[in-house]
């Protein structure tokens, strides 16, 4: 199995500060990989280096087998980008926009099919400037996938979406991933988004990768202590334990048959993430 992305010892400095400080990263073909990190962690810089927008200071980078810094136009045929906050093509219609970007690729998907895929068929004749934020974002996705990319970059794709639009967007990404085994590199601030979409998650802070694992296993999550909470004698109690079942059984014996306000909570991805980046909870 070849890797879609392979990064070793990536470094990038700006005047006086180190944005990326020795990042190693492997993303397998067909994988959905989420890169998480606070603002200023080096997330955007890393992704922009992989996208070929920025030059690195040191390290080895291979994206679809090529160095993005020296990559050819042909390399771009395999790359799809969904960038943050673009507002271009405002006076073109949705259909014109998608058709225009189809022209850059040797083997594009049919424009109508892509417009349908992103759910904009009813808006195909509407000018892009008249779309809502979520619809505008779907045009970006349509442009990103029109060339049948092998690797798709999604940069904070659902920022500003309402919950329903977000769920529709997730369904779309899963569909794309399943259809063509497109490799997807996602950056996001939403932990639920990473958990629901990603095969693996990487956490980056201060320019370094702190952990890479599946959402279920990240940072020892699967074996982490659970939190059992209940109400006893009118006061809320909590207990952290590696054996929550035993704790509940003991509570049921003591307070049963129904334990008041019982809740057993495994650490969420967010708890693990905040732990990893050293943020006080």
């Amino acid at each position, binding site marked *: 199995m070849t890797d879609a992305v392979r990064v070793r010892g990536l470094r990038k400095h700006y005047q006086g500060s180190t944005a990326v400080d020795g990042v190693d990263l492997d993303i397998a073909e067909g994988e959905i990989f989420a890169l998480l990190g606070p603002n200023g962690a080096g997330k955007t810089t890393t992704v922009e280096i992989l996208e070929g927008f920025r030059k690195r200071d040191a390290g080895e980078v291979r994206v679809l087998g090529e160095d993005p810094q020296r990559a050819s136009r042909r390399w771009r045929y395999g790359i799809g980008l969904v960038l943050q906050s673009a*507002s271009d093509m405002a006076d073109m219609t949705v259909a014109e926009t998608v058709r225009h970007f189809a022209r*850059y690729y*040797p083997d594009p998907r049919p424009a109508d099919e892509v417009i349908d895929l992103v759910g904009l068929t009813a808006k195909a004749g509407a000018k892009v400037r008249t779309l809502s934020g979520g619809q505008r974002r779907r045009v970006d996705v349509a442009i990103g996938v029109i*060339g049948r990319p092998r690797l798709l970059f999604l940069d904070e794709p659902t920022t500003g979406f309402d919950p329903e639009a977000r769920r529709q967007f997730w369904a779309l990404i899963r569909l794309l991933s399943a259809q063509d085994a497109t490799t997807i590199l996602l950056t996001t601030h939403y932990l639920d988004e990473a958990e629901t979409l990603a095969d693996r998650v990487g956490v980056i802070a201060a320019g370094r990768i702190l952990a890479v694992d599946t959402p279920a296993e990240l940072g020892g999550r699967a074996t982490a202590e659970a939190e059992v909470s209940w109400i006893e004698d009118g006061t809320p109690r909590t207990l952290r334990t590696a054996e929550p079942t035993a704790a509940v059984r003991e509570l049921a014996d003591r307070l049963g048959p129904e334990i008041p306000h019982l809740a057993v909570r495994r650490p969420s991805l967010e708890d693990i993430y905040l732990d990893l980046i050293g943020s006080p909870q």
Partner: protein
Amino acid sequence: MTASTTERPAPIERALREPSVVSLCAARAGVELRQFFRERTAVIFTFALPVVLLVLLGSIFDKQIAGSGIPASQLLVAGMIAAGIGSTCFVNLATSITSDREDGTLKRLRGVPMPPIAYFAGKIVLVLVTAAAEVAIVLAVGMAFYDLPLPADATRWATFTWILLLGVIGCALLGTAMSSVPRSVRAAAPIVNLPFLILQFVSGIFIVPLTTLPAPLQQIGALFPLKWMAQGFRSVFLPDSAAAMEPAGAWEHGRIALVLGAWCLGGVILCLTTFRWQGRKDG
């Protein structure tokens, strides 16, 4: 890495037709023209400005220039053709590239397999079309209201063509270079318009004949292409006796070609050294 179990169809060898550079240039030109002409208000103001200026100035300079028998308004028309090219090629192009940089157009285009020449080809077609329309409108107004005679001989039309082309290319290159100066599209209009306004003033677009301007202003104007374009267009549309009203007392076609050519060359160098695909905040 665990092996993925995703079943993939055997790769089908498709007959891949790589998009040709020419077809992508045409595609960009189509987008540029459609985007420009769909912005109705901008279109109206772009084409109305020189006409309004011409009518206003024509009502001030409504006499013949002493001792020449040539109506001042005809000098204005020739100058306004030059100013129209400056406004479509320099002002509008600079603003539109600044806007492309800000709204994500340039970043998006860098991220798709587009040969960079296609972007510039699209802009070239846009400025050629808008400059030609602007020139046609000013000429039509000049003929309708100020009895501007169209030249009958081919030599004059040849002069018209090379001055038009050198003027368009020079102004467009300077507009492209200028687009890197404003930090945002909101700052672009004042930053680009103020120097252009001053330039029109010292190039004798608003005040005719040019020699009525103080000499230092004339000398500043002579450093830039606009003055030479206006002088060239006067040589096309006015009788040769009008050359006496030029600062040198002659049309100076050789010098016009030299100055405009030098600006084209300088413009290329400026563009190559200053053009940025990304905004300042993107680094």
